[in-house]
């Protein structure tokens, strides 16, 4: 009987070790020291840390790291693999979903967060742009457009849900413009501004200026009006639609990652789970969720008195929470001749990760609570089955079972923390010719952290994309 109880409860009490922290601790240091080749070697060597359920993340991490290292061909290989894995994961495995209800969310295949999947295509487009393969970059734009259309459809009227990406739309506009596809470029430009308006974020000034000038100059005054854009005094170096230019993309700072927040609570006899947690300011928050009533065995302990105290169970679990990662690189600086340009942030992964956590909070919490309730029941049954006449052994068994059940409850903290904190753009209109650019990263006090010099050749009407990474 005891052996059978142990055998039956083993799979429910089994969990996979959470390796996100191990990965983070090593890769974070390598990213901060800009040693991307070492990071790529580490990822490949420690493939097992990702486990079989995180192949998408493994390939995305490698692709992003190779992109930073300037090895665009290798980056394309791994990012394309990640896209294929994402497509293959469309079908949800009934077995995995059921298993995750018993073990923890880490047993589910990692499908990527919505913004990460958009950025998967964005980074692929960046790789192709770095290699001057504009047709291939357009393929990535088109794939992301299809994806975002579906994301928007699924989001429906949920205003807090991720539905589009302003940076992606801006990049798409530049790619279409470089390919001479005027209408697609203007539509993407309109969409870029619209996304920032929808998510109630300030439209990057350079984008607002360019969108207004370009839309009105091409007979789309109504679009400019609809977006509430107005004439802003142009700067001396304003890019012109279809003109040749150098576009510097700055990948600055390190993205926040996911840690765990502990939740604890009481499962009350009549089917309510009262739980508590500490919010970002350390303040204790109390809330309640409906839960199934306690099993008959628990009532029996209370000798049939449903209202007796003691017919409650204490439960504990963990939820993913945003964990800040400090980095100094805040501003992109580009010097070309006597002119110095400052980068403007078009996207911040902190905002995107925070939005993702908020959007998925209820579904993760519901799934976790169901699991915790099931596991608590199993632990209780295991304790009953292992009950002996020796009070000391019973005490040790109970402590051991509870400790094991607590250990198994791990939050799913998988995320692509190798993405930059902000993506910044600098557009420099130029005449055809050869240019020498000095690219630099500055901290909040204007101190230069690192610089690189790039030699660029630009032909008539060409858009040359240059990528600069500073994760310090």
């Amino acid at each position, binding site marked *: 009987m005891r052996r059978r109880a142990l055998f039956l409860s083993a799979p429910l009490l089994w969990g996979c070790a959470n390796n996100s922290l191990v990965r983070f601790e090593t890769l974070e240091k390598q990213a901060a020291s800009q040693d991307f080749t070492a990071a790529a070697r580490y990822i490949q060597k420690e493939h097992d840390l990702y486990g079989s359920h995180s192949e998408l993340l493994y390939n995305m991490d490698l692709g992003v790291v190779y992109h930073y290292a300037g090895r665009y061909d290798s980056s394309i290989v791994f990012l394309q693999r990640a896209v294929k894995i994402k*497509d293959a994961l469309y*079908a949800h*495995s009934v077995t995995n979903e059921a298993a995750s209800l018993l073990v923890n969310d880490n047993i589910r295949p990692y499908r990527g967060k919505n913004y990460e999947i958009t950025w998967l295509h964005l980074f692929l487009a960046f790789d192709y742009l770095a290699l001057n393969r504009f*047709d291939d970059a*357009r393929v990535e734009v*088109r*794939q992301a457009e*299809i994806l975002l259309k579906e994301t928007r459809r699924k989001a429906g009227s949920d205003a807090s849900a991720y539905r589009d990406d302003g940076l992606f739309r801006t990049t798409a506009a530049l790619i279409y413009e470089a390919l001479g596809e005027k209408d697609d470029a203007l539509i993407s430009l309109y969409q870029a501004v619209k996304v920032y308006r929808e998510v109630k974020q300030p439209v990057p000034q350079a984008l607002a200026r360019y969108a207004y000038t370009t839309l009105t100059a091409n007979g789309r005054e109504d679009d400019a009006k609809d977006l509430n854009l107005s004439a802003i005094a142009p700067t001396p170096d304003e890019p012109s639609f279809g003109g040749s230019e150098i576009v510097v993309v700055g990948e600055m700072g390190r993205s926040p990652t996911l840690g765990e927040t502990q939740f604890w609570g009481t499962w009350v006899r009549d089917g309510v789970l009262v739980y508590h947690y500490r919010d970002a300011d350390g303040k204790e928050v109390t809330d309640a969720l409906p839960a199934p009533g306690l099993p008959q065995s628990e009532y029996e302990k209370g000798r049939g008195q449903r209202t007796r105290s003691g017919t409650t169970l204490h439960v504990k679990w963990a939820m993913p929470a945003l964990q800040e990662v400090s980095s100094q690189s805040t501003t992109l600086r580009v010097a070309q001749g006597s002119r110095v340009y400052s980068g403007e942030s078009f996207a911040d992964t902190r905002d995107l990760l925070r939005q993702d956590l908020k959007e998925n909070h209820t579904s993760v919490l519901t799934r976790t609570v169901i699991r915790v309730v099931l596991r608590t029941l199993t632990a209780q049954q295991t304790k009953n089955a292992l009950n002996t006449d020796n009070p000391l052994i019973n005490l040790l068994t109970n402590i051991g079972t509870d400790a094991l059940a607590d250990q198994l409850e791990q939050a799913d903290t998988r995320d692509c923390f190798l993405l930059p904190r902000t993506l910044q753009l600098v557009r420099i209109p130029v005449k055809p010719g050869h240019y020498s650019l000095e690219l630099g990263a500055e901290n909040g006090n204007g101190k230069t952290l690192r610089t690189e010099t790039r030699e660029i050749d630009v032909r008539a009407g060409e858009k040359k994309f240059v990528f600069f990474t500073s994760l310090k």
Partner: protein
Amino acid sequence: MTSFSTRISSLAIAAALFSGCGTKVTRVSHDSTIDLSGAWNDTDARLVSEEMVKDCLASTWLQAYGAQKKSPRVVVGEVRNKSHEHISTETFINDIERYLVNSGKVDFVANKAERNELRDEKADQAGNSSVQTRQAAGEESGAEYMILGSINSIVDQEGSKAVVFYQINLELIQLETHKKVWIGDKKIKKFVENSSTKF
């Protein structure tokens, strides 16, 4: 249970567990149609080249040219991929070139990239090959027509279902006059349905 039956049961369980492992390869005919993901594949490329060759050989430009009792010289220009998939246009363009050359009605000259490679070789020969075997520069056949084209796609997706429409356009343009003498197109429509659950 006897030890013999225990062993048999263990073997059966092991066989069942390992039956899904390993790679199985089956040879199939090169022109068989196998659709796995719904993405552009060899069958689509084959359908495009077959249709285009048939249309090109039957069109009036070739008959008009045939009256001169010589074959037109054609070069392949850029076939741009404007679709949502990474499609190698080379596969069906090579097929089209092969069919047309083998028909004996059209001559193809090397494309831009190939010409650069050939010129490098000639430059190398000029310094290293004997005078008798050296290939002269400035004797290339100039093309009279250029093939240009594009692949476009439209995707209409909702949930697990998608309708994918491809349109492939090829144009034959007279280099001297920029006159379009032939326009061929091929349309392919697919309905793709993905399962939303699996075991």
